[in-house]
């Protein structure tokens, strides 16, 4: 890519928004477009050649999160998984109660599913978070009432990387016999996810966040837990999700899950070290910055950091011109106005809240990438601060 004639190096640090498909994944998918293209529900050779592939992928997903293959429902994305889990459970359990508990820092796919249910007569308690983005477990437990049918609390936050104490939430849910859903879209492939150990009843996965393609995801639903489907029709996915299987996507998701099992060490080791190097480097080079999210309970690949006196999009644009892709909280252009609901819920000072930048590291990133960012970022920040009325007013005061 070039700006004004100059070639720039490209550094992708927005892996929380989406990731490149991994070579092994794409290779595994390719035979399923033109050669093994059958419908796995068909009984003839063309169908049978692929139904085994769907079964294998189901096994691979199940193994990564430690569940049974038949507890996996293949979906098209994380948003579908969240909608199916939340709306599907709420409708199914309506006769048991109408109260749902979630948190203020969930992804919009969860929060807006809950808002939709509110219009349908459900009551929703939205738990607050502290300045590190953490919920209070006592508050969660206190919020449970007779009517509570569902808790939806994410595993890892997409903006700050904050990891909720999922096992503790699971224990509370189990104690009160409330169904527990977790949006693990950012966690799967980055930290160990074990639905048994965590006592999770439903868990959302999205393929494109860890090397599988866009357009495929999965929802884990514990055996015996009923669900009203979103898509009706064919008998696919044990009547819980109609629609011809996205065979290549499903195969790709399976392979990505298999790779993830061994990659977790790299996430916890090399990626975490790179992230920490970036964080320490920024903190030591640039004054008046603030890391957002929990310092310890955090996804190993995520750094959310704010720069006083300036605005996030402007920082992103300058980074982009230098070839660095990062983001400010959400990948959604329309969300870029005003402040992120996650940062807002953490009570971050508005001056800091509007300038938060998210670096989402991935397997392709190197020490060089980090050092390049550390080299260019101070200048970018200073240039923008020099333009800002807040900065000169502050300096003057």
């Amino acid at each position: 890519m070039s700006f004004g004639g100059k070639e720039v190096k490209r550094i992708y640090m927005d892996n929380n928004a989406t990731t490149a498909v991994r070579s092994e994944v794409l290779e595994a998918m390719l035979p399923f477009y033109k050669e093994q293209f059958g419908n796995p529900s068909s009984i003839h050779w063309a169908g049978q050649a692929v139904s085994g592939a769907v079964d294998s992928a189901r096994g691979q997903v199940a193994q990564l999160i430690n569940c049974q293959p038949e507890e996996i429902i293949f979906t098209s994305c994380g948003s579908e998984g969240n909608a199916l889990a939340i709306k599907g459970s709420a409708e199914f359990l309506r006769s048991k109660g109408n109260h749902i508990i979630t948190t203020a820092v969930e992804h919009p796919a969860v929060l807006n599913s809950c808002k939709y249910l509110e219009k349908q007569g459900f009551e929703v308690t939205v738990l607050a978070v502290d300045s590190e983005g953490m919920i209070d477990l006592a508050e969660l437990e206190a919020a449970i009432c007779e009517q509570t049918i569902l808790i939806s609390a994410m595993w890892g936050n997409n903006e700050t990387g904050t990891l909720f104490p999922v096992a503790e939430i699971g224990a509370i849910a189990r104690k009160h016999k409330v169904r527990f859903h977790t949006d693990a879209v950012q966690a799967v492939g980055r930290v160990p996810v074990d639905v048994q150990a965590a006592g999770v009843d439903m868990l959302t996965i999205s393929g494109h966040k860890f090397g599988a393609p866009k357009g495929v995801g999965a929802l884990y639903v514990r055996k015996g837990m009923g669900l009203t489907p979103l898509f009706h029709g064919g008998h696919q996915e044990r009547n819980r999700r109609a629609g011809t299987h996205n065979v290549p996507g499903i195969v790709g998701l399976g392979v990505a899950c298999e790779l993830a099992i061994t990659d977790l060490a790299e996430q916890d080791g090399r990626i975490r070290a790179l992230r920490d190097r970036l964080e320490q480097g920024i903190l030591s080079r640039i004054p008046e910055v603030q890391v957002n999210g929990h310092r310890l309970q955090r996804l190993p690949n995520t750094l959310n950091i704010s720069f006083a006196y300036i605005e996030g999009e402007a920082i992103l644009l300058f980074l982009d011109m230098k070839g660095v892709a990062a983001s400010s909280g959400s990948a959604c252009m329309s969300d870029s106005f005003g402040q992120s609901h996650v940062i807002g819920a953490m009570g971050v000072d508005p001056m800091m809240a509007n300038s938060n930048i998210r670096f989402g590291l991935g397997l392709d990133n190197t020490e060089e990438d980090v050092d390049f960012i550390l080299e260019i970022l101070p200048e970018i920040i200073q240039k923008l601060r020099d333009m800002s009325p807040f900065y000169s007013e502050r300096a003057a005061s």
Partner: protein
Amino acid sequence: MYSDKVIDHFTNPRNVGVIIDADGVGEKVSASCGDRMKVFLKVVDGVIEDLKFQTYGCGAAIASSSMMSELVIGKTLDEALALTNDAVAEALDGLPDPKLHCSNLAADALHDAIKNYKEEGA
């Protein structure tokens, strides 16, 4: 997403800064995003002889501020008052729909500075 002109004005914003002995100072804070712009004017014989700005805002806001400064330096106050945010956006070869409001910041801050200049002058 942004036109080449926006990128140009964002990367090399013209007329950033403060005029210490400004004849008029104006300011605008965006209601929708909290972004903020300050405008400093030097006026001679009803003509804007110099203008400097400071902007806390997104790429579109910074580029709009810069473009606005180029559009009105050397113009009469009346001409400057007639400047609309649409004209700023147009001079930038357009802004993406969700970013149209950002050009308001520049036009509004300019108009506020002119108003303050006139009130103080009166």
